[in-house]
């Protein structure tokens, strides 16, 4: 229930990371956790992010949870049995199609990440990936959806159009009705409001000028 807000879904996944170092690693080799963290920290971000290729992905974050924080006396000191890969994302629509889309877009990347996790070897196709993620899923509480309730492509187009319309208003103020109409026709032709594939904002775009023509 708490995972959804309208058509938006908030996914929280905790995948246990294998303890120790990979077999065959040289003496003093890096642990699974260190290798995974390094992999995550060198992923590109914004429109260069691999996650920008995943359909309907609003935003997401990966990180490694090494332990639970100690709150100080009189709390008990507790420890996790392993480190965890935490994946948290907000997206449009249902969980299974989203994960299927992710597998299609990023199969190699997903395999490279999950080989550091317990049970990662069971993930061989979209179906087993979905099963694995569902096993690791925890309920998202306190989901505040910061997005409108539309598919990503529609939202990106809306943002693009809003920006362009604002520019249009500033550029064409004071023109006569026929001039304005001509300019608006040109605007509609150029921006193609009904065409979600372009021109529009690039998925993951962080700067206002990242437009896909």
């Amino acid at each position: 229930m708490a995972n959804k807000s309208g058509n938006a879904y908030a996914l929280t996944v905790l995948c246990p990371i294998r303890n120790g170092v990979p077999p065959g690693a040289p003496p003093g080799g890096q642990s699974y956790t260190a290798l995974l963290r390094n992999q995550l920290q060198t992923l590109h971000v914004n429109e260069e992010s691999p996650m920008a290729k995943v359909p309907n992905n609003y935003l997401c974050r990966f990180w490694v949870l090494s332990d639970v924080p100690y709150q100080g006396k009189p709390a008990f000191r507790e420890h996790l049995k392993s480190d965890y890969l935490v994946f948290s994302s907000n997206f449009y629509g249902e969980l299974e199609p989203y994960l299927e889309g992710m597998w299609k877009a990023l199969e190699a990347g997903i395999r490279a990440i999950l080989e550091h996790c317990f049970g990662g070897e069971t993930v061989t196709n979209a179906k087993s990936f979905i099963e694995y993620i569902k096993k690791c899923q925890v309920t998202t509480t306190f989901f505040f959806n910061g997005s409108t309730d539309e598919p990503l492509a529609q939202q990106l187009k809306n943002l693009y159009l809003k920006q362009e319309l604002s520019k249009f208003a500033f550029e064409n103020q004071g023109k006569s009705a026929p001039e304005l109409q001509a300019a608006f026709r040109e605007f509609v032709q150029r921006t193609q409001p009904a065409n979600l594939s372009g021109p529009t904002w690039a998925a993951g775009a962080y700067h206002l000028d990242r437009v896909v023509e």
Partner: protein
Amino acid sequence: MSFEVTTGGVDLDDIQGSVVKAYGRYGLIVARYVFFHVEVPVAGRKFVEDILPLVTRGIPWNDPSFIPRVATNIGFTYEGLRHLDIPEVTLHGFPEAFSMGMKARREIIGDTGPSLFHRWDPVWNNRDDTTQHVHIMVTIDGKEEQDLESRYQEIRQILAANPGVSQLEGHRGADGDNLQYQPAAAILPSKDNLGYPGGKEHFGYSDGITTTFFEGCGEDKNLVIGGGKPTGGDPHSAAGWAPLATGEFILGHPDEAFEYPEAPGPPLFSRNGTFMAYRKLHQNVGSFNAYLNDEGGKFPDGKEALAAKFAGRWRNGAPLVSFPTEKSANEFIMELARLQKKVWADSASSEEKNRFAELSLQLVAFDYSGDTSGAKCPFGSHMRRTNPRSALEFGKRNAFDVPGALSNRRRILRRGLPYGRVVDPTRDDGDHGVIMLIANADLSRQFEFVQQQWMNYGNDFGLANDPDPLLGNHGTNEGRVGGGRMIIEGDVVTNKPPYFCNRIPTLVETRGGDYFFVPSLTCLRMIALGIIDPT
């Protein structure tokens, strides 16, 4: 003028006068800002000791006979305090904004592009020569030039007696002079540039009409109206306003969050002191006039109305929200000026006196609760941005615990005067602008926040990233074209469309400044004696 003061619990005798008073209101309308460097700490402390008897205190001037012909105040940069033997532990207690200084905070406050320090006056800019670092600021405010000159000479004598301290030159003047100090003077209204209550700035606006009012400031208690914080009561009367907490402006007193502002120890060192930002702001008068003439020619209500929409007041001082038409604004100010003349000449009847008081109140007694769409006073206008009153409730009464919840902790005290003279109103160059002195208890939370979020960004007003039309940094002007834009909201009632101002040039550029600690009289004595003990 005599008035009933409010001083509750605040030792104004220990606070510097420039903090609690806008001297211009008392007829001290010319000033010199003089800067010093301390080479020998002992000499620096002796210099402070010698200046101390001249330092003007914050006692109320509620009787004309209390007003001196000249006032003197003193402040220190972080580097300055370091050169005055202030203990390390005390220095480390200062907030980061102050210890970093204004130049290092440039990305936050928008001193980039046309306002970058490379273009500042030489006095602020000699990075490689450490002897040029500004350590001490002495401000002299007077009634007339001769008052300034005699006080200035007294200070020169003190300087001569303390060879370990040197005066820093390098203030640009009209002809690129290397001035020994920064001069400033009020611009009084002329016949064809009528204004109230007197002071103008170089764009022609009446300035300094509202004065921020806090508990115990020692000013006329009626100034709380429009100058305090909104209570939710009628904004046209005293019921609508309450004094801001002392601690918003004076260290060592509780602030609006019922806490003491961050300040270094020992408590006696910082109590009754404050932080002041000194800013030399150049005004691109040629660009302003050109933009106003060009865009004002297209703006349906004309040039003066456009100038008013930029500021939130007509250039004669009448607030837009109460006087939405040029005609109503002019009639109001003409009547006010007529009555003022009679009151000042002591020839007003009691009826006229009452009427004068009533009209004077209208200059400041308003809020934006009757203008939630911005149809009268745009959301992006300078005045509505800098002092939103209760506007950040966006018309939703009781949106927060108090109507000023989002603005009460962002208030500043505005001091300072215009400088220079506009020789050719079609040109940007020359040396003219405003010396702004901004006092607050927390530079980061107050001055820098206003500068960053309200002057150079617009999101709090629902204006995306639009900066303030007048004070915003719109980039380096090329051919008088900048990157600024402003939406002047339309009016759904009269079906008036909104108006879009585009390519606004940068109108105000920073030409120098720094952050100063303006200590209490007690602290000045402690600095002089070298007895600050933070342990």
